[in-house]
């Protein structure tokens, strides 16, 4: 499989496994126990279904964490 993802606005190759959980926790190294949320094409993907979420060419992946705000 080949293709492009946009992860937090930056283009990256779509990995062979195309699996959201593997991408986030293993490829990108986000810490499992920390607080962050993931959206694909603007829709929230609960962590309970990351393992069943398969990415495709052109998908937008956003990974958001807490920041300060007013």
């Amino acid at each position, binding site marked *: 499989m080949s293709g492009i993802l946009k992860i*937090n*606005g930056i283009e990256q190759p779509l990995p062979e496994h195309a699996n959201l959980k593997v991408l986030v926790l293993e490829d*990108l*190294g*986000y*810490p499992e126990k*920390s*607080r*962050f*949320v993931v*959206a694909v094409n*603007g*829709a*929230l993907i*609960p962590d309970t279904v990351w393992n069943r979420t398969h990415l495709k060419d052109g998908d937008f992946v*956003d*990974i*958001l*964490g*807490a*920041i*300060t*705000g*007013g």
Partner: protein
Amino acid sequence: MADFTDERDLLVIGDKQIHGRLWLGSSMYPSPDVMAECFSAAQPGFITASLRRQTAREVSDNGHWYLLQKYLAETKTRLLPNTAGCHSAREAVQLAVMARELFNTRWIKLEVIGDEYSLQPHSLELVDAARELVKQGFYVLPYCTDDLVLCEALLHVGCPAVMPWAAPIGTGKGLLNPYQLTTLRQRLPEAVLVIDAGIGKPSQAMAAMELGFDAVLLNTAVAKASDPVTMARAFSQAVSGGRQAFLAGTMTERDLASPSTPVAGLPFWHQQSRGA
């Protein structure tokens, strides 16, 4: 710090009690420790936060968030995530849904910006977003202008409170339109009204509370003070004082002077003037 909390004067929004009428933002403090000290000094009812794209490292190393979580866990203060930076109802709803998941709360400070220069809210998109989020079970607290019809529309779609600006965000100009804010209070006597944005000094927060607003939300005025912790305490006392003044009922303003000290029985001067 003196505690002016009156247990009979509860602030309830929706079906939830809010334990403080000063609400603080969590941004722009000199350090996480100073931020936490400000929270302790002010004991805010809500603390606002937000969410943004982050790398794995940023997620792991987040001192502000760590201390904010710790403060929330030890107090009755509630977290109020915002949708800052959104320019459409669709964006705001998406971000609110993600905030609910991230922060595990149904509270949302709804921001939909319509003008980048003044950061004025987009009234039409704001109402659309509020309607959808209320439908999804959120407690929506919208940042809005002081437009009476807009505030009525937001309440009508189910917002449990509205949060009109005093002045544009970060300006510190205070209550730019006291007439309109007074009108809001008079025309919406049952609504929970919170001043959000534009407050620069404790006296301005106090003035808002004297008008009968239920709470004040601010960030820059504390975070950017020379001594943020002392300023947080000053705001806390001002908000409390303003609330007490509103409940006590201020005197009616008069155009003519009227002596405070009784005139009857005053010696000397009547006789002197008659004898002259």
